[in-house]
């Protein structure tokens, strides 16, 4: 599935919720279903700065696509990560670099996009794009 198609799918899923509480409950469920990552990947190198909760993000390149795995000690943050991993994992680096993130607004999580928000959604997206850039550079060379 393309990034855009996955984003459309998420917008569709979130559109059935009538209020923020249902959206958050769904996000919490997504957080709980995020595959666990190995404890040895939860080290300071993988830690994303700028989050009030801890967020670890790991990436590897497999068959030209980036596989993201991640975790957090806070469940709402984990839900946000789950959404990002679903959108950006298993995609080609260039596609990740080209993708926009307007869908965040459309699924009603706009408040998490503010750069002053301490949950680091912005930092997470930035980190994912940084990895994509690094891998893309590697591929080009």
């Amino acid at each position, binding site marked *: 599935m393309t990034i855009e198609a996955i984003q459309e799918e998420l917008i569709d899923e979130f559109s059935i919720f009538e209020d*923020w*509480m249902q959206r*958050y*409950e769904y996000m*919490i469920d997504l957080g709980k279903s995020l595959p666990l990552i190995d404890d040895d990947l939860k080290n300071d190198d993988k830690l994303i700065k700028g989050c*009030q*909760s*801890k967020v670890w993000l790991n990436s590897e390149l497999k068959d030209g696509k980036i596989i993201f795995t991640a975790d957090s*000690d*806070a*469940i*709402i*943050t984990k839900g946000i990560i789950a959404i990002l991993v679903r959108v950006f994992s298993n995609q080609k680096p260039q596609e990740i670099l080209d993708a926009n993130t307007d869908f965040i607004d459309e699924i009603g999580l706009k408040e998490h996009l503010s750069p002053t928000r*301490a*949950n680091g959604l912005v930092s997470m997206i930035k980190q994912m794009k940084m990895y994509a850039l690094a891998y893309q550079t590697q591929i080009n060379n």
Partner: protein
Amino acid sequence: MSFNIQKIREDFPILSRKVNGYPLVYLDNAATSQKPQQVIDSIVDYYSNYNANIHRGVHTLSQEATDAYESARQKIKTHFNAKEVYEIIFTAGTTHGINLVANGFSDILKKDDEILVSAMEHHSNIVPWQMLCDRTGADLKVIPMNEEGTLIMEEYAKLLSERTKLVFVNHISNALGTINPIEEIIQKAHEVGAAVLIDGAQSCSHIKPDFQKLDVDFYVTSAHKMCGPTGVGILFMKEEWGNKLPPYQGGGEMIAEVTFEKTTYAGLPHKFEAGTPNICGGIAFGAAIDYLNAIGFEAIEQHENELLEYATEKLLEIDGLKIYGTGHKTSVVSFNIEGIHPYDIGTIVDKLGIAVRTGHHCAQPIMDFYKIPGTVRASFAFYNTMEEVDALVNAVKKAKYMLS
């Protein structure tokens, strides 16, 4: 004024707004207090009617502004019962005052001298002393605290020696709400000849310290925690220290050479007030002190203690909820629920219109002590109500239900 909570709330325009569709429940008073109309009016009045630079002009506006600014200083002096009005130095806030003192001690401290700080300090209270120790070769020692968040006074007594030059403790801990026994701390420090600086950022909205009775050497606080504006505070400094410490920022001494008759301010407090000060802020700080005194600190303390007691009782009914800081304290409840990250709780209760603080509250050493990433902190002011405590408790219950 008798304590009429509804009437008091009407003084605060912000308290009638809605957040995320719910009535605002503002429980982040330890971060900053809200402002009553009287303080807001004093700001508007200053800029609308007599804005001018102070201490310099012979013209009427300048005289009016100078009088208002200096009368605010006088109000602050009376409020805290300082001996002399020039012992009150206007600053940009608590952190500025601390740095001013730390800088002044650069010339006084020698290698192997010691500074004592408490284990429950805010970051802004640790870093300036570490920097001072780096500059002077002095050592920083920590007064430990126990599990209930109270300083261990026996350990404090053991740390004191003729090497101790300065003791630095907050009056009330921002993260835990603990009220420290500063009378005893000051008295013991003086016995070995050490000076004491007290951080009153958290205390002055709840209680009214008496500087002469405390016999404190330095005391700092911020207006914005006391219903005043941000960017202004005071450093109280005993006259003898004021004469001993060098100016902090360049300009003070030079100003003495300027030949405006009437206005040579090389002495206290101007020695430490280089540049055009926050005139409006100082005046509004005075208005905030008037406002608080009109309500009365006894009434404030009583109401806040009732809020604290009720909140503590109701929150502890929630399964798995633990409160940090259980000693003698003010109206701050710092808590966690087992298995739930404080950030998650803060996010959900915010969606319900409730403003609390989550995180390490700039006091990481305390969080390390309890081995937790942070807490949820609800801090109450005199304008909060029992109904707002109920709203908090219900929101926390809802958050717990959603998150577990």
